[in-house]
């Protein structure tokens, strides 16, 4: 059944592998994947260790509903202490690896130690082998996967791998599967690289039995239709995430020129319509009816004729607005580079934009950059620097260290220009006009990122009664809710609600595009409760799922606090307060975040969690969530 997948503990230093079952009690407490990973990481990582040392623990996991008839239940989660931020590291990707891991019999791989030489893991039908990776090490992301399939003579093997970026310990290297499915953010690829672990290959033919197969099938049809009948999912299935760019850039909500601006003017070459000229069709992840991955061939230049997947909204910004570039083919090339080297496109864009600002302000010069002319809009320099990061060459070698460490090397107050939260570079959007989104990035457990707690539907100006319907379940809420995204009122609750929603969806292994993220009518707690029952037989009410998510979110918080985090880190860089929007629609011009109001929002946000004014969970909260005895080392 869907509940019998195991945890494997793999010590790469000694080569010892042990497995254990996951009890029903632990399932109910943590659901699976990211939720249970929070428990495992909290129990297995000693505070204060070097994230790139053998002492760090990397966990690869599949969610509770992965591989079953739950729409797009295909996500893989990778977590460890982050070598970029020295805080909680966590990355989540789609594709086909995660279900294959479950058909091979496992839900969690807890990887410790460091292999004496490069290796990969071969997981198949209940067994795990550590294999020599001499034929795979050094290869690009796509080539590495093919090399493993060839070596094991099975074309159906699915591989989770690092690229040269992870091998060379780029502190924001991804873990990848397929051409572009990425576990991005916080440098999980570098952690695998530091363990000499190139890849995890999976292949399985073990049944996942379903408690009520017929009903699960019928309900899955309903569940899928709820998603794919929405305009937002249909648009996404047609254009991919690039459709988001036009809507947000027009308003003036896009990170431009390292957050000095909020809109790229004359953006035609960066828009979804321009990219669409090169898109030959769409690809879907496992079991997904939305199919938002574009397929393209690079038409010209050094990579002419290369087939790849993407681009995403993230590539439009990194190789577009944030670096000031207007070159459609450049976006395709940038997509290919981040895919082949296995790099976090958000961090790449953020750091290069930071370097451009330093160069434009005369803080660094050609001597620092190895001759690269880092001016706004110089796409050739941006692409070359991306390649250098992947190879850890020249100036790219410095940026590969991430913002904090690179700023230390560069000195000269360069840190003041780095736009980040907790050391993680600010992503695509600019939240000066949107307090809810600003609170999201300020408090997210992995830093400036949208996928932990973003109330993206806050941008839709939904009527209050619709918001009330969404946000007053599964726990009652009768505080304020407002349609205007410029407001501060009621937004703390929205961020808290989404934090639990996203923890739950990550624990189930379902894609965020299939819950209340971009689609206001998409499924959440109530629908999941039904799905979990039909598929696994577990009876979890919407409130039980919510509480499990809250529990795991608190463990991520405790992890960060143990690493020395304080309330000061739940905060934004100065330009968010001091540099008002100059561009965009009149409604957002002149806006920036108000320090006092943000502080009040954070207080309110802590109160909803049951945290004290320092952001520390109170003893009562820990008791209520039954984590007062953690770390308990039960698993």
């Amino acid at each position, binding site marked *: 059944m869907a509940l019998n997948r195991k945890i494997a503990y793999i010590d790469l230093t000694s080569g010892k592998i042990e497995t254990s079952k996951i009890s029903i009690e632990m399932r109910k407490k943590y659901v699976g994947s990211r939720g249970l990973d929070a428990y495992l990481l909290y129990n297995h990582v000693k505070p204060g260790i070097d994230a790139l040392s053998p002492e760090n623990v990397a966990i690869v996991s599949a969610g509770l509903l992965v591989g079953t008839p739950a729409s797009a239940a295909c996500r893989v989660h990778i977590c460890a202490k982050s070598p970029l931020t020295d805080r909680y590291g966590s990355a989540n990707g789609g594709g086909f690896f995660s279900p294959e891991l479950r058909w091979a019999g496992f839900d969690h791989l807890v990887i410790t130690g460091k292999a004496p030489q490069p290796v990969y893991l071969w997981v198949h039908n209940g067994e795990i082998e550590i294999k020599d990776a001499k034929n795979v090490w050094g290869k690009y992301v796509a080539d590495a996967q093919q090399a493993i399939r060839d070596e094991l003579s099975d074309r159906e093997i699915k591989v989770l791998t690092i690229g040269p970026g992870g091998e060379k310990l780029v502190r924001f290297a991804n873990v990848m599967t397929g051409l572009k499915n990425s576990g991005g953010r916080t440098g999980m690829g570098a952690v695998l690289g530091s363990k000499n672990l190139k890849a995890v290959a999976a292949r399985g033919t073990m049944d996942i039995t379903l408690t009520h197969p017929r009903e699960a099938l019928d309900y899955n*049809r309903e569940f899928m239709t709820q998603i794919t009948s929405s305009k937002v999912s249909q648009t996404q299935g047609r254009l991919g995430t690039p459709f988001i760019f036009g809507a947000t850039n027009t308003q003036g909500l896009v990170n431009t020129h390292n957050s000095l601006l909020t809109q790229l003017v004359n953006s035609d070459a960066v828009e979804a319509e321009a990219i669409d000229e090169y898109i030959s*069709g769409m690809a879907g992840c496992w079991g997904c009816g939305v199919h938002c991955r574009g397929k393209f061939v690079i038409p010209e230049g050094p990579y002419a004729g290369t087939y790849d997947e993407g681009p995403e909204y993230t590539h439009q910004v990194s190789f577009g607005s944030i670096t000031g570039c207007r070159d459609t083919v450049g976006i395709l090339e940038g997509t290919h580079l981040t895919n082949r080297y296995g790099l976090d496109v958000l961090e790449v864009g953020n750091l290069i934009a930071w370097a451009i600002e330093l160069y434009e302000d005369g803080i660094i010069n050609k001597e620092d950059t190895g001759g690269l002319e880092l001016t706004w809009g110089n796409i050739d320099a941006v692409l070359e620097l991306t390649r250098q990061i992947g190879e850890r060459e020249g100036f790219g070698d410095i940026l590969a260290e991430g913002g904090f460490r690179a700023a230390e090397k560069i000195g000269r107050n360069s840190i003041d220009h780095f736009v980040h939260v907790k050391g993680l570079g600010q992503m695509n959007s600019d939240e000066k006009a949107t307090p809810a989104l600003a609170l999201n990035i300020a408090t997210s457990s992995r830093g400036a990122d949208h996928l932990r707690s973003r109330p993206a539907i806050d941008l839709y100006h939904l009527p209050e009664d619709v918001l009330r319907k969404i946000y007053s379940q599964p726990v009652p809420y009768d505080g304020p809710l407002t349609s205007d995204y410029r407001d501060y009122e009621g937004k703390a609750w929205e961020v808290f609600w989404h934090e639990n929603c996203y923890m739950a969806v990550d624990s189930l292994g379902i894609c965020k595009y299939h819950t209340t993220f971009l689609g206001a009518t998409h499924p959440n707690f109530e629908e999941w409760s039904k799905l979990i029952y039909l598929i696994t037989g577990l009876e979890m009410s919407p409130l039980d799922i919510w509480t499990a998510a809250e529990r795991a979110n608190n463990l991520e918080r405790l992890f960060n606090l143990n690493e020395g985090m304080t309330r000061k880190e739940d905060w934004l860089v100065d330009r968010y307060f001091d540099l008002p929007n100059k561009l965009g629609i009149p409604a957002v011009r002149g806006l920036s975040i108000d320090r006092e109001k943000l502080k009040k929002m954070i207080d309110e946000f802590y109160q909803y969690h049951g945290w004290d004014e320092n952001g520390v969970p109170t003893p009562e909260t820990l008791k209520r969530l039954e984590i007062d005895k953690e770390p308990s080392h039960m698993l």
Partner: protein
Amino acid sequence: MGKVLVLDYDKCTGCRECELVCAIQHEGVSNPARSRIKVVKREWEGIYIPMVCQQCESAPCMAICPVKAISYDQELNRKVVDYDKCIGCRMCIAACPFGAMSFNTQTQQVMKCDLCDGDPQCVRFCETKAIRYADASEQSLDKQVAVANKFIAATKNAAATLTT
């Protein structure tokens, strides 16, 4: 003649939902290894081809079966396996030109598409309509229209070139 599964390879996104629902419908479990339909993927080129029984008129599987376990069901226009007769020799798998017959190692039986008794689940779940359940004559009509469209575009281009 009844309906057939009509495949449009260009529309397939490679998501393999069809494999999932096929295995659940027939075996009650989630496991693509037990699906009757299979998407053959060349991910590195973005090409995805669903492979499934074509319910051949002159079916090699039926012809080669030594115990006549495979027969023609006229009502649903399908070839069906009688498992009371089947001896599991796998000759049908060898004979099928599409690889559309396969072997279930858990039940030790051959498996093939049975059109879900007239409600094919792969069709029900395919969001892009890459698989449709339609009259066989529609298959050629679609192709004719597609070719005609290309022809019209070509003549328009030629006319435009001539006038300039």
